Structures are given as structure tokens and as C-alpha cells.
């Protein structure tokens, strides 16, 4: 036992360590529990939930790219009702903060989902996915429309007392403007980044490799972009940031924290090594011991420029 304090605050949300598991890359936790002790994780973000179940996109849904992957799952999920009835009981057996990710097709649906889910006391916070290519308002994606993001934040805050984290899209000119809107409307934190729009074609058939035509790029390929987005937010807006994008090991976590992240989420890595989260937490502790860091939260935003 060391004296290192790995705990972090993401606004009002307290986590035992900065390592969370990203939405869409841990299902609802049960498969992951076969590989790791969920009680040791900083937090679990559920697969995006919508009001009604969604079947998702037809195959092919994923394709590998250099140091990355494209996915177009299409927000396949069981819906709020089944989640509460069948999925959350499993997660409640563990002492791990559950962050519920919500994706909806209208502002009303976001609000409705939040209203229902906020009743469940096991849910510790909400992560609002405004950055999914399937979610449109007037032909534009919410995630690319600053005022829509502000409005969603405002309306959701009105129906819950729990921390609200807005998950931002990287497919915009200035991500910090979105973070500013979140802050102005009372959002508690932002997470950055969701996937980048990408595509790949099969040169024989001349068809997109992914049925949905485009997909979201994740994995180490996007890490430099993700770190730059976190830095942009940190330098422009005073709001807690959860860093996401291409994390493969503890060094990547430290890099995100230096750039401004209070905590991070592991995504694609869970597919490659479902036990990675635990190894990373152990390595972070060792890193703190080696560097004489007493509280890992001191690393957040400690860049020297």
C-alpha cells in the first residue's frame, strides 16, 4: 500500500481513480467483469441509451484502419426500460460509479430519458452524447451546432440534480466554443472526444466497407487530435474535462492529464485488452511513486508551454 492519492474530481463527481471505461466499449459491464474487478475502476460509462430500444445499423459495422478502426454501430441499445430492469441490477452489485450515457433524436427525448433514469439512485452521473452521426436536428447534427448543445445542456440540467457531462464532437472548427456553451448553460463537465468521421472503400466492389457509408474513427491514430482538443478546451474554458481518444497505456493517460484532463475514458483498448484498465491503474500508482506525486489530480493541466 502506497500513500498515493489516485482519486479525482470531475466537477461534483468523485472517482477513486481517473480511469473510466468509455461508452460503447464496455456494453453494460457484464462481459468485462469476467476479466477485471469492476470495483477497482474509476467509473463505467454505459452504452448510449435511447428511450426505445434501437436495433442499430446492418452489417458491416466495423473495419480496421492504420492504428485505428471505423465503427458505425448505429447506437444499438436495449432502451431505457430494459436497461433499468435487466442491466442495472448486475452493475449494482459492484461499488463502481455508473455514468449513464444518453443519445437521442430530439431534445425532448434527451429530457425524457434523463427524467426516467435520474430516479435510479445507482446512476451517479449522465454523459450526454450529442456527437453521434445518427442524431439530427433540421439536417444538422446536434454536435455541430453550438446553440443546440447549449439548449440540450440547459434542459437536461433542469430535470436532474446529478452531474451532467456533455460528450463533444471533434468534427468541428473550434471545440472550445462548445465547451463554453456547456459551461454557460450549467453543464458540469465535458468529455472529449467522440470519434472522427471517416470512411473506407472496397476497391473491388467500389462500395463503402461500412454499410452506413461513413463511420467513426477511434484508436491510437486519433490520439494526437484528441490531446489537441483537450488542450484547446483547457486553455479557453474553465470546465472539468474527461479525455478520450486512442489511449493504449498509462503514458497516454498521463499525456491527456498533462494537457488538461481530470479523468480519462478507455475505448477501443477494451477490445484489444479487456484487462488493460487494471494494469493502467497499477502503473499510474507506480508512476506517482516514482515521480513523488502525492495526488494524481495535480497532474491535470500541468503542461509547461
Amino acid at each position, binding site marked *: 500500500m502506497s500513500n498515493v492519492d489516485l482519486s479525482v474530481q470531475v466537477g461534483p463527481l468523485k472517482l477513486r481513480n481517473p480511469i473510466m471505461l468509455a461508452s*460503447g*466499449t*464496455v*456494453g453494460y459491464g457484464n*462481459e*468485462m467483469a*469476467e*476479466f477485471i474487478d469492476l470495483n477497482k475502476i474509476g467509473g463505467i460509462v454505459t*452504452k448510449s441509451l435511447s428511450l426505445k*430500444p434501437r*436495433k*442499430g445499423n*446492418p*452489417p*458491416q*459495422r*466495423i*473495419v*480496421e484502419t*492504420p*492504428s*485505428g*478502426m471505423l*465503427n458505425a*454501430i448505429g447506437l*444499438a441499445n436495449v432502451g431505457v426500460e430494459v436497461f433499468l430492469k435487466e442491466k442495472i441490477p448486475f452493475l449494482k452489485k459492484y461499488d463502481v460509479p455508473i455514468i449513464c450515457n444518453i443519445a437521442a433524436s430530439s431534445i425532448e427525448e434527451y429530457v425524457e430519458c434523463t427524467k426516467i433514469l435520474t430516479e435510479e439512485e445507482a446512476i451517479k452521473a449522465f454523459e450526454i452524447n450529442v456527437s453521434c452521426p445518427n442524431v439530427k436536428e433540421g439536417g444538422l447534427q446536434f454536435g455541430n451546432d453550438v446553440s443546440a448543445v447549449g439548449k440540450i445542456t440547459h434542459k437536461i440540467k433542469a430535470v436532474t440534480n446529478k452531474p451532467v457531462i456533455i460528450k463533444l464532437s471533434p468534427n468541428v472548427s473550434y471545440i472550445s466554443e462548445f465547451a463554453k456553451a456547456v459551461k454557460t448553460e450549467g453543464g458540469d463537465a465535458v468529455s472529449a472526444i467522440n470519434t472522427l468521421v471517416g470512411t473506407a472503400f472496397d476497391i473491388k466492389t467500389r462500395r463503402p466497407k461500412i454499410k452506413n457509408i461513413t463511420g467513426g474513427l477511434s*484508436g*491510437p*491514430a486519433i490520439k494526437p487530435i484528441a490531446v489537441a482538443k483537450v488542450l484547446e478546451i483547457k486553455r479557453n474554458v474553465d470546465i472539468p474535462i474527461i479525455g478520450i481518444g486512442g489511449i*493504449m497505456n498509462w503514458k497516454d493517460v498521463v499525456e491527456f492529464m498533462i494537457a488538461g484532463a481530470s479523468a480519462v475514458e478507455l475505448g*477501443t483498448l*477494451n*477490445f*484489444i*485488452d*479487456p*484487462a488493460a484498465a487494471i494494469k493502467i491503474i497499477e502503473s499510474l500508482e507506480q508512476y506517482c511513486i516514482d515521480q513523488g506525486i502525492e495526488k494524481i489530480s495535480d497532474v491535470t493541466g500541468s503542461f509547461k508551454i
Partner: protein
Amino acid sequence: MLIVNANVEEIIELDNQIYLLKIFSPEIAGSIKPGQFVNLRVSESTYPLLRRPFSVCDVEGDFFYIMFNVLGEGTKTLAHKHHGEALDILGPLGNGFNLEGDFETAVLVAGGLGSAPFPYFIRKINGSKKILSFVGGRTFREVITYGMNNILTATDDGSLGFKGNVVELLNENIEILKSNKIKIFGCGPTPMLRALSEFSIKNNFECDISTESAMACGFGICQGCPVESAKDKDKFLLVCKDGPVFNVKDIVL
């Protein structure tokens, strides 16, 4: 479902640039069932990034085998592995073939590398059922009969055995099939599996097929490997978790 650090024992090159990778792993060898698969990390680097899924081809004591050919970067890297190298393996994954039931002859139908799971299948059946194998390929070079027995072959170009596809060959032998208590087990490219499904359903044969899909995780968390369910139109089944082996009546290919 385990993550094990196994060791490469040997890489064996068969004819036609088909490789067998022999792996030392008591955990996997001791628990895996025919039709199940493993998800291998072919390199520690970020390229290839994702694991690669392979059916278990055979098991001998503490060793198991996979069979593959070189398609892209992942299989190229695998083909260069040598004795003693560490290999990070996730498995056993998926459900495997359903060997229960009231049949006397297992009719194995393989297209190309679809033969991969059958050597272990035959070893496990271990004489308790009769085996009849139908093996097809586009040309004689693609007909892979390693570890199989009682074999009839088909090639699209007629360069070996019956001229036509393997399902047509089944049709040619329909009388034999009908006069036995059979169950069909198929593995191969999707068009072949589709034809095999139709054939089995039409003739009222029990039939399990081993399907494939692009996969990111291999154990149910990414939702990357959907297949249309025949029973519930409102949701997809997952090849990695609900399969890769399905009864033909349960899915729509």
C-alpha cells in the same frame, strides 16, 4: 473466457500456402470445444490494432492448432512467428457446434478454409458418429482436406472431383443423405453457407453453420458483428457471442 499468454510451438506450412500454427496453452487446449474460436493479438504494436479471430483447428494434449492462409497484415505477421514466441490469446470464445441430438452421421461441409474447425470436430466425435465430408473450392488448390476423412470433393472449375459447388455435390448425393440419420455441419464463405441453409431447410436436414463477421472485440462488448435473427426482427444476434455457430433456422444470412 480467459486472456492467456501462450507460446508458439511451431509454424507448419501445408500445401497451397496454408499454415498451421501450433500453440502451447494448457488452458485453451483443455477447455475449448469444436467450433469455438480464439482471438489472437498478432503483435504488440498498434498495427495491426485489433485481435484476429481463428477457429480452433485441432487439439493435441496441451497444444492447440489454428489453420490460416495469408490475407493481410495480421495473417502475414502470424505466418512469421517462430518457436518460443509469446502469443496473447483471448478464448475460448463463442458457442461451438451442437454435437448433441439424435443423429448417426455427421455430414461435414467445407468451402476453402472452412475446413479449419473440422479436424478437432472429428477428433472429438471420436468414432461415436459416422463422418461424411464434402469439401469444395474454386480450384483444386483451394480444396483443403487436412485432418478430414471420408471425403468427396467439388471444384468450380472441375479441376478436382465434382464440377460445381459443394452444395450441388450434396444434392447429387441426396439419396445417401436421406437414407441416413444425419446432421449437417457447415463452414465456409457466406454465399456457400446461404446455399447450404436453403438446401438444409428445403430437405428438412438439421444443420449448424459456422459464420464469420468482421469483429472488434470477439466477446460481446462492441456490437460490431451483427447477424439478422430469423425469430426476432427487432434485434440482431451477435456472431461472436450468440455464434459463431448457428442453427440455420435461427438466422437470416
